């Protein structure tokens, strides 16, 4: 196991370095000079000295190699410089918005697991019955529905429902309050976005649970269990589900990183000031340091999630370690 862990952890380094190089090159592919754009956004002429100063300030007057090493070193210390738009350190900007995004991501995962595993199992056990069809339609729908539209629809329903019942439309609060300060306010804000993002997540995991369960239920040891007269509930819960969970756990881990993508859009719908929204604003404002930092952070989260999933998988299934 140790051998495998070391091998797998070492494999992360070239991926992260490659990603850093790619982000670094991408952000320098931007047509035109960032400083000219920054100073000349209002048009007119400007002092070349000011541009030189701006270059020096952003460290752009140094050789590329030094800039890249500096960038990688910064990534390693989670120090991404200052935002070109607000002038604040990028880390401060991100940390201020991280709690809400993290909370929604975790809630969405909980929602997804709570929906996916029971429904996927029932669907597999009751294969080709109406229950199975309903679950499958629910899953296919989840993959086809854009999460932002689902968000808009849920807002629409809440607004219309509350204005019809209470005579005054009610919207979830948009200002973040930590859950330990005001749990009701916190959850009423995070619930809808979490369900919105969680539905797609649930749909994907549900399909995986179903097909994994179907496969496991065909195994000989299940037949043996059935033959020795074990009750169905025990067979499903103890014997089948445990073994079917392997691919599902993998998927849940990998999809967690994809949640970030979902958050980018969903936070926009619910007007939440999270990391996803910051990302969109960074791109809109052409704030390259911030965009660069956020892309890099996403990649780091993604790579680490994959690493954890792989290690977990190897721990659960010893065959992987030796292949």
């Amino acid at each position, binding site marked *: 196991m140790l051998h495998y862990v070391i091998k797998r952890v070492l494999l992360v380094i070239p991926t992260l370095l490659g990603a850093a190089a790619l982000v670094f090159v991408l952000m320098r592919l*931007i047509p035109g000079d960032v400083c000219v754009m920054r100073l000349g956004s209002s048009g007119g002429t400007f002092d070349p000295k000011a541009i030189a100063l701006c270059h020096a300030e952003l460290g752009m007057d140094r050789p590329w190699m030094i800039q890249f090493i500096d960038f990688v070193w910064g990534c390693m210390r989670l120090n991404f410089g200052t935002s070109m738009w607000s002038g604040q350190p990028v880390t401060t900007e991100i940390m201020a918005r991280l709690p809400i995004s993290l909370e929604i991501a975790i809630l969405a995962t909980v929602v997804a697991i709570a929906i996916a595993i029971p429904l996927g199992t029932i669907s597999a056990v009751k294969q080709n019955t109406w229950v199975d069809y309903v679950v499958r339609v629910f899953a296919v729908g989840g993959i*086809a529905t854009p999460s932002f539209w689902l968000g808009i629809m849920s807002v629409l329903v809440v607004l*219309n429902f509350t204005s019809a019942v209470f005579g005054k439309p009610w919207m979830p609060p948009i200002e973040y309050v930590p859950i330990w300060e005001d749990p009701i306010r916190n959850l009423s804000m995070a619930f809808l976005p979490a369900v919105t993002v969680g539905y797609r997540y649930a749909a994907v995991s549900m399909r995986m649970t179903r097909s994994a369960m179907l496969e496991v239920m065909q195994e000989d040891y299940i037949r043996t269990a059935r033959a020795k007269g074990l009750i169905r509930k025990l067979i499903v819960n103890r014997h089948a589900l445990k073994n079917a969970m392997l691919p599902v756990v993998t998927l849940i881990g990998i999809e967690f990183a994809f949640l970030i993508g979902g958050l980018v859009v969903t936070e926009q719908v619910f007007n939440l000031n999270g990391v996803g929204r910051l990302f969109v604003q960074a791109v809109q404002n052409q704030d*390259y340091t911030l965009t660069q930092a956020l892309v890099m952070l996403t990649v780091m989260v*993604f790579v680490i999630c994959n690493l954890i999933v792989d290690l977990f998988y190897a721990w659960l299934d010893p065959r992987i370690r030796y292949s």
Partner: protein
Amino acid sequence: MVTNVSSIDFSAADADNAVVSRTSRFRRAREFCRQEVLGTLGLVLVVVMALTGLLAELIAPYSPTANDFGAMMEAPSVSHLLGTDQFGRDLLSRIIFGARTAMIVGLTSALVGGIAGLILGVGSAYFGGTIDLIMQRVCDVLMAFPLIIMALAVVAIFGTGVQNVIIAITIPLIPRCARVVRASALSIREIPYVDAARALGYGHLRIILFHMVPNVMAPFLIMVTAFVGQAVLAEASLSYLGLGVQEPVPAWGLMLQGGTEEYATTAPWIAVFPGVAIVLAVLGINLFGDALRDTLDPKLRKR
């Protein structure tokens, strides 16, 4: 004389084969429709969407960009079947023209990304060794970027607009296709006919294009179909964020953008119908893709 007879025999056999393959193809299509009811439904949805996009000028009752300030936010009625938006534009016409945008972006990015991935994947498997190793590491790096994040980064550089959205969505699709295609190409490379082709002195390009590519068509087609759906969703998301297709080009995601929540109680149709269009399109593509996968790759068939 002998050659004549044999050539006649051959042509007769060929004609026979042609008849058989034509009827069997027809039979296979009919079989597909009967076995894969949902897949057929998906295919119908896709065909309807494609035709709508192609014939938008003929079908749409109004111009997608014409403002009718006398009929702003009008509820669905006989003159405006799906109602009008806050600028008095006919929603049905905009959705019909939006189908064209979605098809252009979806098909182009899926095909370009798929074909690039196909060539890179097969090439990587064929050449093996260092080339394969480098390609795989590059794929690792590219796949570490979630699709929408990569697309956002590309948009940050090239800017918005239909062309740039296509580029932004195509790039992340390439490594995903290359990875899957490489896996099946690796097993094909071990089959003796590839060695035979090499022994006959065929060039690399010929072997790759005519001997290996046709044999990875099944996973390739499955991937490309899935890509179309993903690309349509990604385009809608980018446009919704204001970082994709720009006004006045009609696009479904864009239609959902402008303050749909403000009109939630007064004009909910503005938010409802474009979303329904997206869901139906992606649902159709996915259902068809699932059925295609079951038909082409029996190993993955759902039991």
